[in-house]
């Protein structure tokens, strides 16, 4: 299958109507059914579901960086996996460059295939994912060359050896591994953590994608190496104009190069907007609490820390009304019954709290 021609149709259309928004997500839901014990099935008890992503909408501008921040159980990794096709969305729409993602696994044959649809295979040509663990995301028995060339091979691009070598060289050198030829025949275990992560990024950039999904790209690296990788990502964004969805739990790195910021809690976005607006003027109590407890390397700073009690509840049992109300210091009776929507706080800044807007 020659993916180039099937996606090229989209490319010419792309040139005609270059969208300002590279990615748009509308009301995305991803629920996982929990396997029931046999007894419960026999007793006809209703099955439980893990509502990992429960109604998320956002959009990323072309060439912009958006940070998705949340703790474990917030659903941020599930969103990334769904966007790249590792999971199938339960409901909702994903639009890439204005075209609806056509997950042929879900749609029936009689649905009309309008031209404004993009297949998963084409999406993967233009969007790539950078994984978290540089020690695990590389095949230990593949050489660096094979790893970086793999996306090219899978999509049938640059079939000739010379051209392939050229593209791999470019990708490696742009990721900061010079001279690239030195790395071709090496194995992942011969490289340091930082170098491995660069290889992952090189492999992601080999197809020259327009969107990078970076899932905690630096949390497993040492502090002094993190900066290198973040700098690299920022440079790639500036030079190549690639948009980045930056998923992390580390607030500190967010201020560094994210244009937009969205805070997630239990499968929903509770606050979003321009990074500095959210950081300076956080309105949702959860965001405020998070910002107040992030450790800052300044011993002289005395601040009021809002330490929430308890832990994030299991997404199987999402609280009624506002899902944050059991831990919210400002919760009122209303919060137990009404589920707030994202409301505008100021231009380009929204929060989902009944006490706001």
């Amino acid at each position, binding site marked *: 299958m020659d993916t180039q021609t099937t996606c090229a149709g989209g490319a010419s259309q792309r040139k005609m109507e270059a969208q300002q928004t590279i990615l748009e997500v509308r009301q995305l839901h991803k629920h996982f059914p929990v396997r029931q014990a046999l007894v419960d099935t026999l007793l006809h008890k209703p099955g439980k579901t893990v509502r990992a992503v429960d109604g998320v909408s956002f959009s990323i501008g072309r060439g912009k960086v958006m940070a998705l921040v949340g703790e474990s159980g917030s659903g941020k990794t599930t969103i990334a996996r769904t966007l790249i096709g590792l999971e199938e969305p339960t409901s909702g729409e994903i639009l890439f460059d204005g075209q609806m993602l056509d997950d042929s696994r879900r749609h029936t044959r009689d649905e009309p295939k309008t031209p404004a649809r993009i297949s998963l295979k084409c999406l993967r040509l233009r969007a790539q994912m950078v994984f978290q663990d540089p020690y695990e995301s590389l095949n230990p028995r593949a050489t660096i060359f094979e790893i970086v060339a793999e996306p090219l091979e899978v999509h049938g691009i640059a079939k000739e050896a010379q051209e392939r070598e050229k593209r791999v060289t470019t990708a490696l050198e742009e990721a900061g591994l010079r001279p690239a030829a030195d790395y071709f025949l090496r194995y992942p275990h011969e490289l340091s953590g930082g170098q491995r992560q660069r290889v992952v990024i090189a492999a992601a950039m080999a197809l020259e994608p327009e969107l990078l999904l970076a899932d905690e790209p630096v949390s497993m690296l040492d502090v*002094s190496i*993190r900066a290198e990788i973040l*700098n690299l990502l920022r440079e790639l964004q500036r030079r190549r104009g690639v948009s980045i969805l930056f998923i992390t739990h580390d*607030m*500190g790195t967010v201020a560094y190069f994210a244009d937009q910021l969205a805070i997630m809690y239990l499968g929903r976005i509770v606050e979003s907007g321009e990074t500095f607006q959210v950081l300076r003027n956080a309105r949702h109590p959860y965001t405020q609490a998070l910002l107040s407890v992030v450790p800052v390397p300044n011993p002289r700073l005395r601040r009021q820390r809002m330490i*929430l009690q308890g832990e*994030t509840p299991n997404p199987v049992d999402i609280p009624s009304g506002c899902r944050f109300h059991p831990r919210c210091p400002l919760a009122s009776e209303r919060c137990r019954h009404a589920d707030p929507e994202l409301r505008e706080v100021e231009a380009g800044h929204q929060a989902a709290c009944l006490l706001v807007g």
Partner: protein
Amino acid sequence: MQTPAGGASPLSRPVGLSEPSQNPLLSVRHLSTDFVSLDKTKKGAEVAHALEDVSFEVCPGQTLGLVGESGCGKTTTLMSVMRLLSAAGRITAGEVLLDGVDLLDLSEREMRRYRWKEMAMIFQGAMNALNPVVPVGDQIREPILLHELMDRPEADRRVEELLDLVGIAKSRKDQYPHQYSGGMRQRAMIAMALACEPRLLFADEPTTALDVMIQAQVLELLKHIQAELGLAIVLVTHDLGVIAEVCDSVVVMYGGVVAEYGPIDAVYNTPQHPYTQLLLEAFPDLNRPAETLASIPGTPPRLNDLPPGCRFGPRCPKYWGFCSEQKPRLVEVTSMASRQAPFLQQHWAACHLLEEVASPATVKEND
């Protein structure tokens, strides 16, 4: 802390120091540890100098931070002090004085009496340090019974006290580790460490795998416990923000040696060692989003293939020829900030540049 009804607990000690004490509880001096390769098929032994000339002190009620990147020797330091090194580890020099007693001189049997009773440790990867088939309450009770401090019913009551102290419901005493969440498991580890009322607590990366909110809870708990029990805490981590939040003084380690050591204010605001300076610049600060974060090119040295002279030399931006000829010694750095610190007035750093700049009159060696 509640004592059981009907008499004083056999463990009661004066607790809750209101003022920080100046006398060090733990004094580590010139500690050096090697790891010898046990592989018999190799010709000759391969020796890795994991620690060299490490010195620091901890006073009761003080929290000392041990910070550095992977492979710098922070965990090895803790293991050496507790004498829990693996078979390949050998302490080759130095003293470890706990209340004046050199732990390195003790026999293994004597040492066992110190472990957990005088000093306890919260291990890295606490989640996996719990035995999955034994109820948590039993695991907390185990060291109490091993040290024969109480009989079983009393020990059970003590376990409930401890769970209370760390904020776990008593009813969960008989549950298994897999029924606890990550944060709760960490609290259970803390309860276990406090079982025999140690005076010194080692925490090896206690919050690394936790969410930031749980991390805040656990750090808050540690501070609360310290205030109540007058514990001295040595906190090992790679997170500079956590150190700034909870520690009074900090030891910055690199490649098995101490790069800088001093009160938290002094080290963070006037760092003297180039590594400390770069590390602070590499760490993102939410309140001061920088234009670029500094990065340190290269990788930490291999411990059996160390560069001559200063271990940081190959990566140091201020490197000059002399750096690879001689190892720098810890030199005292005078500053206003350190004079006002509650514990540890001195600020030390190991860099040749400091030695060159200072005149012989103001340079005082670490004893």
